[in-house]
Structures are given as structure tokens and as C-alpha cells.
């Protein structure tokens, strides 16, 4: 019995160390200028703020991930981006499951709130508004772009069923 107790205590300590390390890292990143690969970050501060006409977004084809920051709450994460018919989109998968909605809580916050966001790519920040696209023929092009760029098995039906949420990164004035 004593051996069992000692074993359980040792196991508890072994689990405690990585758990504390992960919680500390998560805490450490929360106010950082952008996310890391594993942890969300804070407000995107560095980089020139883009001002000018709507860019030609085709350059996003060579950008694997962008840093996306919501204004409310202020937090940022790395996310895939695709361009379709001159507009840019981000996706959030697994949204029909409770785990997915907890994991991708930013999508729920963006959909519920005003959607104001900042996206940083190639060191430049763009002020945008996240607008959820829940249905329509535009989703065919977005799904095809996600499939072609990332191999993501998204379909228009899947998106319209709510399993994957698509947001257009629309201009603020739109």
C-alpha cells in the first residue's frame, strides 16, 4: 500500500511539472506581440499599418499562415488564409462539436461580436472586419481554395451545415 502511495505521489509530481509549464507558457504569451505556433498572443503592435486601396490579395497564396487578432477580446492566433475572387477568407473547423467551439472560441467571439480584427502578414498589419459567410455560391470557391492550398477537406455543404465556419476578412468600411 505504501509503495502504491509513493508511486501515485511520484506520478502526480511528474504530471504537475509539464502542466505548470504549459499554463505558465500560456500566461506568458497572452500579452505578447502576436501568437506563437502553440499559444495565442496579445495585440499585434509591430509592423506598418496598411493604408491605401484594397490590395491585390493574390500574394496570400504564398503566405502559409497569418496572425489574426480580434479587437474584442484582444487576442491573436495563427491561422490559414485563402483568397478567392479577389477576397480573403479564414476558416475555423470542428465548429459542430463542443470541443471545437471551445478550441476555436475566437470564431464564436467574432461571430457574436463586432468582428473587428487586425491581420498581420509579411510584417504589415491590415485592419479588417470578420464577416461570417454561412451560405451561398461564394463558398464553392472558398472550399476549393482551402482544398488546393491546405488539403482541407471542406465542401460548401460542410460549411453550410455549420461544421466549418468561414469568415471573410472584409474591409472595415464595407
Amino acid at each position: 500500500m505504501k509503495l502504491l502511495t509513493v508511486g501515485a505521489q511520484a506520478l502526480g509530481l511528474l504530471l504537475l511539472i509539464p502542466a505548470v509549464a504549459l499554463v505558465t507558457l500560456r500566461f506568458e504569451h497572452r500579452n505578447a506581440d502576436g501568437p506563437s505556433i502553440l499559444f495565442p498572443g496579445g495585440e499585434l503592435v509591430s509592423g506598418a499599418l496598411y493604408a491605401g486601396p484594397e490590395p491585390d490579395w493574390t500574394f496570400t497564396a504564398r503566405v502559409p499562415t497569418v496572425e489574426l487578432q480580434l479587437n474584442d477580446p484582444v487576442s491573436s492566433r495563427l491561422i490559414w488564409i485563402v483568397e478567392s475572387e479577389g477576397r480573403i477568407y479564414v476558416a475555423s473547423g470542428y465548429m459542430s462539436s463542443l470541443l471545437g467551439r471551445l478550441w476555436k472560441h475566437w470564431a464564436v467571439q467574432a461571430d457574436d461580436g463586432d468582428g473587428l480584427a487586425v491581420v498581420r502578414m509579411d510584417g504589415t498589419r491590415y485592419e479588417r472586419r470578420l464577416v461570417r459567410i454561412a451560405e451561398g455560391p461564394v463558398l464553392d470557391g472558398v472550399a476549393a481554395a482551402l482544398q488546393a492550398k491546405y488539403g482541407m477537406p471542406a465542401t460548401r455543404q460542410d460549411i453550410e451545415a455549420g461544421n466549418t465556419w468561414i469568415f471573410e476578412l472584409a474591409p472595415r468600411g464595407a
Partner: protein
Amino acid sequence: MKTTSYLLLCAIVAVVVAIAVRFVPGVSEAIEGTLLAFLSTNAR
């Protein structure tokens, strides 16, 4: 080990780990790198 002593040890270990991650240069990068390597190898 008595429960009180064990809980005290856990608290001390937690504080030491948190301080190391926050203030010892390279520790956070090493942990994150290890975790990332693990996930990229095993996650499907």
C-alpha cells in the same frame, strides 16, 4: 510522504517550474520546441 508534506512539495515544485519558465533564458523556447516536435511527429 504525508499528505501535507506532499502538497507542500507540489507547491514548491510548481513555483520553481513557473519561475524557471518565466525568467530563465531559453527554458520556454526549449519546452515549446520540444512540444512542437512531439506534436508534429505524433499528431494526426
